[in-house]
């Protein structure tokens, strides 16, 4: 696609920025990763190793591009993965314009501590902006504002600076994280990723015939063989187009028209490979594999598949179903095992699961008795089986039982 001429002007700005702006940021003084060693001798996660309970991770907060299944390029904000140990002076130059969609996945074991450093590498394509970024762990229990990522009651990192968030993973479950700065804008632009905490029961051998569990269920009822993310992301292409064109942002008219799973619309969802964006058309030095999450669900017939479902659309709710012929068993909601306060089992068996923005569920597909073959997972909001104006797209993927 030939970019519009306005983009050429932005491209010139970009080149100017690379020449003058970013080089002038006080980055090396303000970018630093806080990562203590685990020397307490306590095996907090119960895996038998007392020295691996501290997890350090470094992510960038910035901009990038994603390619939709119909070929449309979308300007994005998101987080990107920064390798631990990267020299601080290289972080901005190496990770600028390399935001991924969704943001890098975070996985922890219950009991572990996470030191999550987020470095704001700036929005290269929007040199007029000076937005901070933050990390909000959505659903973190008993959170403290300093690490809750809300820009109102906490400090947030300016461009060229890092902020290290600390979390003690006391509660297992399916969470997600996102930037909470100007959330209607930054979330619409894509700053959202998966965050899962594996339960302590995973360290306790076989329970009910399984060795991996969504929660500490005590009976294996949340046991699974394979797990897949099912993060329902969605873009309003007009909002993204106005953003890259440096125009006033249409908040009131915001209406998602590119519904996706894990940052891809069908048929990209059945392509297990990374999707390379078209960033050079907008002035970037190179194209980048911004969408890396495999969304083709594969399992052996008879397996229990755990879907870690969340909806992070800023405008829409989505309902999902499958053609497997077996219902979806909802075992977790809001990163909590579905049990009542006195222990009653309140799990639900449904054929359609409606997921509102900000809701997260754990769904088990028990394929015992289902023949090998290819099945479909799709949204029952049938108009959202689309990529923009292209039909047969959107929130749909295949479940392949071998």
């Amino acid at each position: 696609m030939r970019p519009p001429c306005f983009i050429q002007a932005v491209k010139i700005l970009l080149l100017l920025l690379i020449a003058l702006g970013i080089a002038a940021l006080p980055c090396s003084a303000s970018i630093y990763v806080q990562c203590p060693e685990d020397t307490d001798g306590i095996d907090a996660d119960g895996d038998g190793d007392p020295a691996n309970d501290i997890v350090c991770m470094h992510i960038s907060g910035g901009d990038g591009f994603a390619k939709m299944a119909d070929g449309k390029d979308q300007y994005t904000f998101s987080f990107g993965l920064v390798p631990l140990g990267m020299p601080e002076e290289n972080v901005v130059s190496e990770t600028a314009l390399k935001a991924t969609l969704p943001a890098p996945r975070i996985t922890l074991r219950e009991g572990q501590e996470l030191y999550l450093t987020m470095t704001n590498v700036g929005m290269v394509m929007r040199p007029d902006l000076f937005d901070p970024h933050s990390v909000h762990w959505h659903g973190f229990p008993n959170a403290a504002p300093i690490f809750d990522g809300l820009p109102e009651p906490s400090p947030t990192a300016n461009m060229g600076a890092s902020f290290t968030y600390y979390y003690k993973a006391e509660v297992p479950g399916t969470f997600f994280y996102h930037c909470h700065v100007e959330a209607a804008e930054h979330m619409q632009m894509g700053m959202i990723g998966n965050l899962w905490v594996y339960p302590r029961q995973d360290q306790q051998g076989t329970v009910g015939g399984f060795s991996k569990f969504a929660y500490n269920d005590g009976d294996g009822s949340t046991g699974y063989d394979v797990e897949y993310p099912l993060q329902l992301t969605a873009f309003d292409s007009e909002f993204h187009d106005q953003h890259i064109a440096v125009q006033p942002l249409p908040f009131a008219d915001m209406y998602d028209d590119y519904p996706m799973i894990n940052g891809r619309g069908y048929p990209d969802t059945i392509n297990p490979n990374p999707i390379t964006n078209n960033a050079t058309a907008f002035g970037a030095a190179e194209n980048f594999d911004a969408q890396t999450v495999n969304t083709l669900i594969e399992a052996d017939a008879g397996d229990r598949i755990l879907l870690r479902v969340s909806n992070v659309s800023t405008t829409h709710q989505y309902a999902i179903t499958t053609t497997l012929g077996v219902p979806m068993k909802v075992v977790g909601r809001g990163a909590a095992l579905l049990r009542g306060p006195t222990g009653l089992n309140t799990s639900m068996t449904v054929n359609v699961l409606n997921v509102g923005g900000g809701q997260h569920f754990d769904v088990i597909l028990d394929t015992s008795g289902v023949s090998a073959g290819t099945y479909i997972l799709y949204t029952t909001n049938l108009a959202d089986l689309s990529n923009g104006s292209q039909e047969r797209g959107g929130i749909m993927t295949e479940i392949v039982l071998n």
Partner: protein
Amino acid sequence: MSVMKYVFRPKSLWTAVAVIFLMWGTACGAIDGITGTTFNFTAKPGYIVTSDGDSILMWLYAAEGSSFGQYPGPTLIINQGDTITINLTNNLPSQAGNTSIVFPGHNATASGGVSGLLTREAPTNGSVSYQFTATEPGTYLYRSGSRPDLQVEMGLVGAIIVRPAMGDQYAYNHADTQFDREFLYLLTEMDPVIHGLVAQGKWGQIDTTDYFATNWFINGRNFPDLMADSFLPWMPTQPYNCQPRMHPGDKVLIRMIGAGVDQHPMHYHGNDFETIAIDGRMLSSGNGSGPDLAWHATTIKSAPGQTADMIWTWTGQGLGWDIYGHAPGDPMQPYEDAEDHGVPFPVVIPPRDVLTFGQFYSGSPFLGGGGDLPPGDPGLNANAGYFYMWHSHTEKELTSNDIWPGGLVTFMIVEHPDVPLP
């Protein structure tokens, strides 16, 4: 040169308290409303203000003795078992047609007025009367039952709270529904185009089938107006605020009402909530078992017309560091995590010249702490409380008619135990 602010420590919090009372007055911890068994309402036009700077024509319920209608209508706080009478007079413009009130969840009878589709109605300048017995405790709404697609949009909606026989500090007749503080979250939305057409008298152009909300309200106000005090003279038609505050360990009852036409996934920062009732019925497996089918979550979809009661609490336990910044020998605060007592803060906060400070950041990560704030920082957290956003996760709704921030945003403030709360 930097501007130094006072550093508030717990021992100097009494000074801070004087400041906070100037800011927020005394309304806190209980839901504003009117009590009794007979209520005389008038439906009439009035104007509200929105946080994007607009003034919007509404149709509002006015309680007897009030010269202004209000959005939402007066919250009726009544007792289980009481027989309630509501007399409604229709002072709306004649083009609005008849008006009426329906009481979902209650078995109401109507008398007077003229017959209508859902119930008896008050014709223009006429009256109608409704009666019901509040047999079941819980959270309910009332709203117009006449041309409701237009009349509810125009503002004819309100909340009903039925206190259980067990007492005012219980949501339902079970000990497990006890709470320390309660807050109302009555959610509505608005398509300003409709209100503009009504104001211009373009009755024939009003079309609610292409309804598209661009403004959102909790208890009739947008963020940040809803943080201001209740009953402010400059917002006479929007008397209710939504400013929850609590101490660590308090049990907070959230009474949430989907009073408009859209569904809103409400997300509660800071901790999970426990949904104990839907539509005024406890989530219970049987007689006497209490809310044993309650469910935990971080986000709940508020469906149009639906009510939900949730219990929320916060202690800061399990964080892995001492939220008060204590030294190991310091005395404990109520509900403090003994394991975290005296555990140092785990990271270094970068220097402030590379950070952006929010208006509700005290300058310290500690509850009741405080520190230097940058020049120009409004410093709106003099008590150094912990602020948690309670908001719609359809993040678009965090705006007021194209203006960020606004709409469905509130902040729960967990205050230091030494800060007195009403």
